[in-house]
């Protein structure tokens, strides 16, 4: 299930230097803002450097060859989820993809599903905010205000770890890009959304019940829409347990639907 493009052979940074490769990076270019622009693949040739990531390669192309090229990076450390794109046909985080793990021919395209801003830049922010508003992805507290001077409410240490496991989602959009269902159902909440439901369901600080969650995802745009192709699970850069979480939420929601 591991993403081959992201599995890194163990090579210490002090390994002997090799002759640099010439990489040919083909990028799907299109700027909807520009009436003259039409979608096309554009090839750039660059010399590979030690430790080169796609972050380094794309910036070098933009600084030395083509100032118009658009892409998104923020943390460049695999933490913020800004730089998801299709790397040789597979969604992944560009910043932490080392070129040495790819062939000399590399093809990059923007994530599908999301609104295209230009070239490799897509509007994941808008999609994620809509999803968050729809699924109300925040803790629904028992009372609006807590007394901040008092000891915090206790939580079992293992439960805190279990919640964090699901809380590690960085909303990069890879799961949505790798989803078969969302191509047929544009309103589908995706694994990112279903994982959030699993996360808040687990959290005792959230007062919502399964009835409430059923109202949010007990339909074909929610957990019953998932066709279990599980592309999401295969491409998740954080290796979240999406397959089991979706199955679990579906079982809980199905049991409820049956009763109701």
């Amino acid at each position, binding site marked *: 299930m591991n993403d081959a493009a992201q599995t890194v052979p163990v090579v210490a940074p002090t390994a002997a230097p090799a002759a640099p490769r010439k990489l040919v990076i083909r990028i799907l270019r299109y*700027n909807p803002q520009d009436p003259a622009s039409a979608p096309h693949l554009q090839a750039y040739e660059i010399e590979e450097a030690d430790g080169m990531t796609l972050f380094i390669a794309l910036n070098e192309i933009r600084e030395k060859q083509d*100032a118009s090229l658009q892409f998104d990076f923020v943390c460049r450390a695999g933490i913020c989820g800004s730089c998801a794109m299709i790397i040789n046909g597979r969604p992944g985080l560009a910043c932490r993809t080392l070129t040495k793990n790819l062939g000399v021919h590399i093809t990059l395209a923007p994530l599908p599903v999301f609104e295209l801003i230009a070239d490799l830049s897509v509007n994941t*922010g808008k999609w994620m905010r809509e999803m968050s508003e729809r699924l109300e992805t925040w803790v629904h507290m028992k009372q609006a205000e807590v007394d901040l*001077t008092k000891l915090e409410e*206790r939580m*079992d*240490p293992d439960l805190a770890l279990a919640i964090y496991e699901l809380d590690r989602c960085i909303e990069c959009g890879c799961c949505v890009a790798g989803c078969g269902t969302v191509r047929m159902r544009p309103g589908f909440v995706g694994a990112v959304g279903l994982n959030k439901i699993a996360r808040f369901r687990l959290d005792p600080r959230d007062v919502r019940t399964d009835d409430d969650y059923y109202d949010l995802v007990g339909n074909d745009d929610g957990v019953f829409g998932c066709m279990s192709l599980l592309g999401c699970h295969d491409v998740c850069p954080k290796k979240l347990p999406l397959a089991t979480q979706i199955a679990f939420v579906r079982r809980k929601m199905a049991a409820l639907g049956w009763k109701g």
Partner: protein
Amino acid sequence: MNIVYTDVLVVGGGLAGLRVGIGVRRRGHDVVILSLVPLKRSHSAAAQGGMQASLGNVAKGAGDNEDVHFEDTVRGSDWGADQQVVRMFVDTAPKAVRELAAWGVPWSRVRKGDREVIINGQKVTITERDEAHGLVAQRDFGGTKKWRTCYVSDGTGHAMLFAMSDQAIAHSIPVHERTEALALIHDGGRCYGAIVRDLVTGVLIAYVAKATVIASGGAGRLYRVTTNAVICEGIGAAIALETGVAALGNMEAVQFHPTAIFPAGILVTEGCRGDGGLLLDVDGHRFMPDYEPEKKELASRDVVARRMEQHIHSGKGVQSRFGQHLWLDITLLGAAHVNTNLREVKEICQYFLGIDPVRDRIPVRPAQHYTMGGVRTDHTGQSRTLEGLFAAGEASCWDMHGFNRLGGNSVAETVVAGMIVGEFVADYCDGVEGHVGISTGMIHDFLSREQARLDAFFTGKGTEDAVALRVRMQEIMTAKVGIFRAGDDLASAVAELQELLARSRNIGLRYRARGANPELVAAYRVQKMLKVALCVAYGALTRTESRGAHFRHDFPQRNDAQWLKRTLAVWKHESDTLPTLTWEPLDVMKMELPPGWRGYGAKDYVDHPDTAMRAAEVAACRASLAGFDRRTVQQALMPYAHLLPARFQGLNERIDERLAQPAVVTA
């Protein structure tokens, strides 16, 4: 004209900006948050190891309280901090952790009973108390007397940012993503909002607001080697500076983090050392105890970073084809610990270095990490010279970090400052001073001026390359305004930065699209960044002493007699090539903790003439109040509680300090 009206305009969508937004929204004010990037992608997410708050839940944190946190922070700052602001901060930090706990942050929790930990390279068994079970846990960090750093594995910033962002969504706060503030609208005395560029369409929009809050983070990208995200270019500080009225404080105070992976510069958390990791040299020798017998790897960051560079200069660095580095060894912590509490570190090592830190040592070398300086404000977060302009978080200098920030105090500051400044911003908007009387003519003038500046890039005959100028600036800053500084290097850095600034007024573009245009963005940003870089370099050149992270080979002593003061930088005229510097003295006679030795690092310093007198006063006060509780003593030495917003007053409960009466509900 494109004009958006709101009560509060927040520039920056990280933890500080979001918490300000939530605070003012709850007080009934409209707010718009501007962000360069989508919600949840800000650099706050990169905070790994945790957030300091004196909860004192774990056994090694027992006895911790605001007093201990206060002293650690002031010592860490090398007495550069505003001690009243530090008091406000340490008092509010536990409340911030508890608020975030209620909002869903999955803080790691205390598990009662025995557990094995590594301390000073040795396995030690710690017994956690039954009564602490299930409360928020703390780990050890540098420069602290107690284990105080609350954490979520090593994804603390991520978990905090997501909980905070989700609260912002719950409060229906609009975040205008992919927008950039280019200039503040002001009349020389009052700020009215900002001229903002839509980064997708290129359209300029005027945002008019009662209060404007800069919460845009640090300026790490002034340097070539930095742990900071690519968006941390100091533009928020720059637009404040460009008003010619607002001041930047202590910009020469720049922190270098000891453990950035080499050569990529990506951070691995101080939690690695806090949890027992060691620094080793080319011989596998643990060298930090040789230099710092008291705190070893866990001295403050400025000290550890300097000792590492010193050790490399002494010939003990590890050679690699990229240059020299040292080793961070966390193999002794064991697989279970690394896989649970240091998993981001493990991922970073796997993806960027191709190593497994459970088995392999991590190549590290210090890199720029934090901007202690920022927009100078009072304790409410408001500029002292430009009314209606506020700042919070790393972009500000209110000033709780002085010349060196402790690990875990920055992500704590973001939220605490957001809480406190948010209340003061709401007060400001409620009062008569919050009323906005601005003519559309003035808005028009600012819009036209910014449009003309952008147009000049397209229509001008400039020949300079924006990216080349930026790269050269970053090289100068890393080479000459880094960990070790000296007068001749700094003077040449200032001279060359001035020359780069002049050249930046003659930039030409290869790509002339008026909409989304990365080259245009690089062009207008480098003009602003160079001004901020000059504040850093010129401030460093002028400050002829060593304090905290600012170290001068030619003036290696801390000199309280001459330099116990804050540097203020103002950019008076657009045509200037240097900031105008003034200095704001710190009043020793008002300090709760008079200057002394930090407990680590250099022991020789020049005393301020008032230090002995104030130390005697403090000692006499403590003696006369012997037997009174710690809060009474503190209140007598340096009152601060009246400075806090009413909402955040109130004693913090701990398992060792239960509140006698039901706590006052501050709702």
